[in-house]
């Protein structure tokens, strides 16, 4: 049975998550220990900043032992972490594993990182030789389901962070950013992040520095661009395609007149102004100049929210794909369960037959070869005919959700 015990951003605050996290260099030792402590056949540990989960497979239920391990390993008592913990066994555990890989359980729905982290976690488990047929099956299936969900739906398509939204909007205006100019006014963390992404897509950066020109020069160097003094604002505006303004200035830095003057030299080429400063740097009127698109921090947030709504709409389609893959995985699992059961049933019946034939021989005394053959044939035929229908039915069961009936059969025949 597959069991998952863990905490995530939904059940535990960051303080608990970080306390339970497994550093990468400890994973191998931790995997060996959990297999020993909880009596697992297979184990895997997924430890990211948003979740810590231990995956295990064992014959008997290992949930309790896993929870115990997770606490003790980090020097806690199970009671301390109990209320943050989720414990999933069997089908719910499988469903969870698939949804995590497909980023349907992520804090930011559809974020791309988790799939890489899941792959890495399985790889570590493989290196520690703690993966067997079942978790390996779960690994292959859940990763391919996640890939399908990403390519066949738009769940990861639209940007949901401010800096990514800025880049997305720039590409909605300019298409490829290759060869475009990004002008940074003021050097802030957010401007740097957004500009960095644009530079990676082939844009050229320049940085306008005010009082602290040195800072501007440093930032320009890190972006592979050049620095210019704030006095050359109008000339730089005329040259830029995207302007990211994030100074700490108390008043307006870019007036409508500056933008109008720049637009006159641009022959109607679009200009994308991003104002991420609070208080704002760019006069509101600048957004009404023809060919100018002005977005302040609230506008970017609105786009991010709209994009997240789009992702949520897509989530249903992604869930459907993942569910389909889960069903296929479950079917595969059940077929694994049924095949040994059939063999066992046959073996058991044959044992009984042989024992009874032996007894009959004792009672009957010496038999002619014909009589002996007839006895063998008759008893074999009875066993085969009796078991024929159950065998066929069992194989049919393999594809369906009939775990109870399989269990019943085991009880009936004491297998």
């Amino acid at each position: 049975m597959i069991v998952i015990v863990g905490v995530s951003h939904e059940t535990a605050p960051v303080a608990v998550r970080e306390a339970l996290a497994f550093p990468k260099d400890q994973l191998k030792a931790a995997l060996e220990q959990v297999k020993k402590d909880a009596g697992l056949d297979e184990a895997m540990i997924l430890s990211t900043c948003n979740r810590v989960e231990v995956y295990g497979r064992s014959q008997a239920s290992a949930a309790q032992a896993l929870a115990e391990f997770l606490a003790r390993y980090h020097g806690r008592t199970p009671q301390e972490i109990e209320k943050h913990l989720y414990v999933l066994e069997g089908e719910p555990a499988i469903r969870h594993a698939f949804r995590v890989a497909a980023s349907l359980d992520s804090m930011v729905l559809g974020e791309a990182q988790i799939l890489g982290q899941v792959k890495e976690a399985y790889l570590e488990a493989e290196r520690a030789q703690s993966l067997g047929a079942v978790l390996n099956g779960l690994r292959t299936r859940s990763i391919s389901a996640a890939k399908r969900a990403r390519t066949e739906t738009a769940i990861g398509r639209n940007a949901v962070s401010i800096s990514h939204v800025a880049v997305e909007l720039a590409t909605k205006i300019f298409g490829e950013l290759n060869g475009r100019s990004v002008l940074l006014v003021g050097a802030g963390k957010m401007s740097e992040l957004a500009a960095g992404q644009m530079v990676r897509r082939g844009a050229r950066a320049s940085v306008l520095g005010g009082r602290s020109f040195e800072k501007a020069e440093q930032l320009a160097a890190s972006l592979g661009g050049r620095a210019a003094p704030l006095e050359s604002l109008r000339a730089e505006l005329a040259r830029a395609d995207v302007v990211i303004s994030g100074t700490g200035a108390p008043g307006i830095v870019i007036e409508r007149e500056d933008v109008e003057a720049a637009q006159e030299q641009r022959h109607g080429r679009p200009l994308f102004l991003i104002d991420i400063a609070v208080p704002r740097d760019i006069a509101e009127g600048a957004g009404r100049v023809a060919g100018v698109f002005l977005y302040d921090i609230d506008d970017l947030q609105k786009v991010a929210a709209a994009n997240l709504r789009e992702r949520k709409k897509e989530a249903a389609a992604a869930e459907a794909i993942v569910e389909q893959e889960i069903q296929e995985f479950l079917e595969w699992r059940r077929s694994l369960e049924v095949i040994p059961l059939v063999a066992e049933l046959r073996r058991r019946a044959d044992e009984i037959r042989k024992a009874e034939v032996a007894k009959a021989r004792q009672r009957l005394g010496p038999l002619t070869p014909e009589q002996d053959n007839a006895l063998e044939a008759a008893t074999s035929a009875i066993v085969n005919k009796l078991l024929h229908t159950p065998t066929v039915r069992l194989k049919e069961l393999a594809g369906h959700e009939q775990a109870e009936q399989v269990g019943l059969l085991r009880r009936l025949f004491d297998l």
Partner: protein
Amino acid sequence: MGSRGYLLITLVLYAAGALHALLHAVFRKSSLSALSLGATLLGFAFHTAALALRWSEAGHFPAVGMRDAASLLAWAIVLVFLLVHAITRVEAASVFAYPFVFALLFVANLAADSERADPVLRSLYLPIHVVLAVFGYGALFVAFTMGAFYLFQERELLARSPRRFYYLIPSLERADTIGGLSVQSGFAFLTLAIATGFLWNHSLQGRYWTGDAKEWAALVAWGIYVTILVARWRWGWGGRRAAWLQVAGFTAVVFTFCWATLAPPLSAAVR
């Protein structure tokens, strides 16, 4: 089965494509796209077969009368949009193309076959002239679509809160570039179509200009696209102004074209 049967199958397949285009626009289910593309390609195959059959049935290039003209124009538009899709991967283009193609084919299916059997129609000028004209109009339709995309996307971006079109249609730059290229190629085709038309007139009647309504329609279209090209090249009119011109230009072309096709009497030359 004659060309009529093939054309009906084509209509059904394009209808499936048109329906998908609508669903795509409403629900943005991109996974359906392969299905719609398949229906379109299959429809296009039937359409081509229908045109070929019709050619042999009529004994001349099938471009005479409402039915054949509409069918041929629809065929060219589908071909041009398939090309645009193959090159640019802009799926949204189908949103505009499908309804238009569907309407044209619907008309073609309802209209009666032209029974004219003029020896003039066996001229080699007919297929050359008509194919050039039809591709010209097809390219100008792409320019119209891209102009509309530009204006829709610009409105979305200025509104600062994305709605449907923001996600559906390409970037301003892309709409502008594809639109500009379409105007250029459409203009080239149209110029050649007009030139071959004049030559045909001359070979038939000894005159280049006969005053036919279609000649006026082509001339108006040509004038509009010269304006767009000059505006783009000389005055640097990219972006929204070019987009407006592309939309207004094609609308004018459609009006003159309809007026010219419906206005009797038609002269011997087809277009």
